[in-house]
């Protein structure tokens, strides 16, 4: 691959990625009134989190079993109000331990 092709491709990718990120934020200046839309936008982040996590989390390490244990540990830790960083560390540690055991 020539450097020229590479740089042009990267630049085009960056541009086309920036379009959806920026247009709504730049163009929509008012607080949209529709209750339905507000509700939808309120629910979206949670839906996105769910969609991003499942099923991919189970393939995030070498072992589905280890990942599952990680998910369970993180869920328990989060349920008992542990902070973001703590839950993350617990999840990583759990996976690490289970992979050692397998």
């Amino acid at each position: 691959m020539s450097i020229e092709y590479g740089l042009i491709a990267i630049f085009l990718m960056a541009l086309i990625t920036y379009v959806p990120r920026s247009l709504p934020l730049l163009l929509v200046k008012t607080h949209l009134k529709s209750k339905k839309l507000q509700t939808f936008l309120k629910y979206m982040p949670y839906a996105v989190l769910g969609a991003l996590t499942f099923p991919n989390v189970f393939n995030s390490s070498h072992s589905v079993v280890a990942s599952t244990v990680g998910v369970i540990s993180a869920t328990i830790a989060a349920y008992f109000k542990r902070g973001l960083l703590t839950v993350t560390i617990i999840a990583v540690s759990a996976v690490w331990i289970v992979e050692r055991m397998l």
Partner: protein
Amino acid sequence: MSRSVSEYRFGLGDGLPIALGYIPVSFTFGLMAASLGMDPLLAVIMSITNLTSAGQFAGARLMIEHAKYYEIIITVFIINLRYGLMSLGISQKIEDGLPLWKKAVIAFGITDETYAVASLEENTITYKYMLGLITLPFFGWTIGTMMGAYVDALLPKSISSASGIALYGMFIALMIPAAKASKTLLLVILVASGISVILNYIPLFSFLSSGWCVILSSVSGALIMTLISPMEEQDEH
């Protein structure tokens, strides 16, 4: 002045777990790109200019296959279409009266994770907060790519495998408290997750890229719950 400094620092703190979660992912990206023959510097430049995981993985693969420019543009655009809805969400939550250039700056940093964290903030979010939020993830993403592309032995295999779950740990840490507090939000999460699992496992939908899966599942999940259970009248959101 001190308020804006603490807003930035507040954002910085919220961005730290994201940055840590990004390192194994961007490391994998750098590693993958370099191992398939891409110049490590190009991989790093890609991360610096794009800041997106699914789009970069797909784009890098296309580049290595010498795909046409329009193929790369269309693919990456479709994969990242979900940022449009996220940007719309942020537009409703961001403080009023920001000049266009400030909005343009924070738009660059809208990723799945920064969007999720910013959206979960109870109040209006400020420019300084978003700036803080984006900072560490940007560096984490870039540095991880650098490590993966240049020195592929830097991260011991055992740690890199376990650290793959870091980002998901963060997602879970964000979802559970919300699900605990509100049955509706629990249902939003369950419905979106359910649809996502279905789209991933039913062979009928195997043609869908990961970007499509995320956008279809999250939009369906949020839409279904909006129709079933809209929020009450509120002046403040």
